[in-house]
């Protein structure tokens, strides 16, 4: 009886195969489901079953029907609009893209805002360009020169000398570090407030207990110069490198002195 079903072969202009072969080819993507005339196959098979109803084994006929139904299902699913199921990662990605685009939009808006401010400033600059103030030779070095006659190379050379002169430590004693660059910066400011004529580079370095402390003090000095809190200068060539207060720190010192004078 098995042969009876095998005898049912689909023969159209494009196809010439058994149902199970056809299903396998569809699943493997060899045959495009679009090209399968499913109604024609069903019609032919039903006619075949009716013609051979007395001899056909129903269990095998049923199997072929199941295979044809599967083809029908595949075809109908193919006709339906595709519903994309997104993984959580894809969804996260899309959400992030959305957020990034939102963020970009916000920045663009912010940028556009400043374009109007730029126009305003340009306008003001144009008006101000017609006003001239007396030109005076600029002797005010406040805020412009932090290091007078001393450059970074001089400071580094001095640091190198200090480090070389420091005795090599035979053993390292592990101690809890009690200083930071910030604390050293405060310490330097406080020391400079007391030293009226300014303090030398060596003065700060001699206070250090270890090489690490020397480096931290050096960094603190550089930071203070950068923040324009202190001034670094040399009175003459090859003289000691000196530091004193400037800017806000100096004002603070003056205020303190005034308060002290008042108290006396």
């Amino acid at each position, binding site marked *: 009886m098995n042969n009876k079903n095998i005898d049912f072969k689909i023969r159209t202009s494009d196809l010439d195969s058994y149902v199970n072969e056809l299903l396998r080819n569809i699943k493997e993507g060899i045959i495009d489901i679009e090209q399968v005339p499913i109604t024609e196959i069903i019609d032919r098979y039903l006619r075949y079953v009716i013609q051979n109803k007395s001899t056909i084994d129903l269990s095998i006929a049923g199997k072929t029907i199941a295979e044809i139904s599967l083809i029908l299902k595949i075809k109908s699913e193919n006709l339906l609009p595709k519903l994309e199921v997104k993984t959580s990662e894809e969804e996260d990605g899309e959400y992030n893209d959305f957020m990034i685009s939102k963020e970009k939009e916000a*920045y663009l808006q*912010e*940028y556009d*805002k*400043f*374009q*109007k*401010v*730029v*126009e*305003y*400033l*340009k306008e*003001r*600059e144009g*008006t*101000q*360009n*017609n*006003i*001239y*103030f*007396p030109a*005076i030779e*600029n*002797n*005010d070095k406040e*805020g*412009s020169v932090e290091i007078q006659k001393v450059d970074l190379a001089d400071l580094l050379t001095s640091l190198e000398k200090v480090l070389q002169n420091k005795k090599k430590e035979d053993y390292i004693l592990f101690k809890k570090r009690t200083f930071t660059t910030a604390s050293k910066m405060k310490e330097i400011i406080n020391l400079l407030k007391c030293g009226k004529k300014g303090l030398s580079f060596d003065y700060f370095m001699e206070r250090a207990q270890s090489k690490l402390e020397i480096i931290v003090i050096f960094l603190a000095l550089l930071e203070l110069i*950068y*923040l*324009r809190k202190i001034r670094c200068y040399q009175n003459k060539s090859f003289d000691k490198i000196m530091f004193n207060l400037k800017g806000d720190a100096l004002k603070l010192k003056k205020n303190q002195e005034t308060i002290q004078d008042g108290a006396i």
Partner: protein
Amino acid sequence: MLVYNNPLTLDKIKEVTGLEKRRSRSIINELISKYDDDSRPFRIYEIAGGYKLGTKPQYSVWVKKILENKRKHQISKAALETLAIIAYNQPVTRLEIEKIRGVSCSGVLFNLLKHKFIKISGRKKALGNPLLYKVTDFFLMHFGLKKINDLPKLSEIGIK
């Protein structure tokens, strides 16, 4: 005012003359209206938290000729953008400026610092302790502003 390089503040006047601030202000206001009314080619400008003598705009044609058309600082668009961002958000870090502008600002900041339009006002207590930038009195002088709050609110220049 003629010889002082920076705008003369009421504090400075008090320090020099001993006059009370209120008295100095009223005298200066008198002078301002006097110079504005007559045909003098200069007037007193209230600028960058102080007072400064300057030429009246209508005489700029002749002043330019004397100065042989020597132009004042001309600020590039990139620098103006950076200044605008700093002025409205100060103190601000380089990264915050770059986030708005979308391009690197190191070079522009360096030039603005060099020409004293901005200054370093400290470090932000954040990862890496970035430097904070602020505009200077020179910025106020360049744009003819009395103080930073004189910058118009964003809503006043048509920004929602």
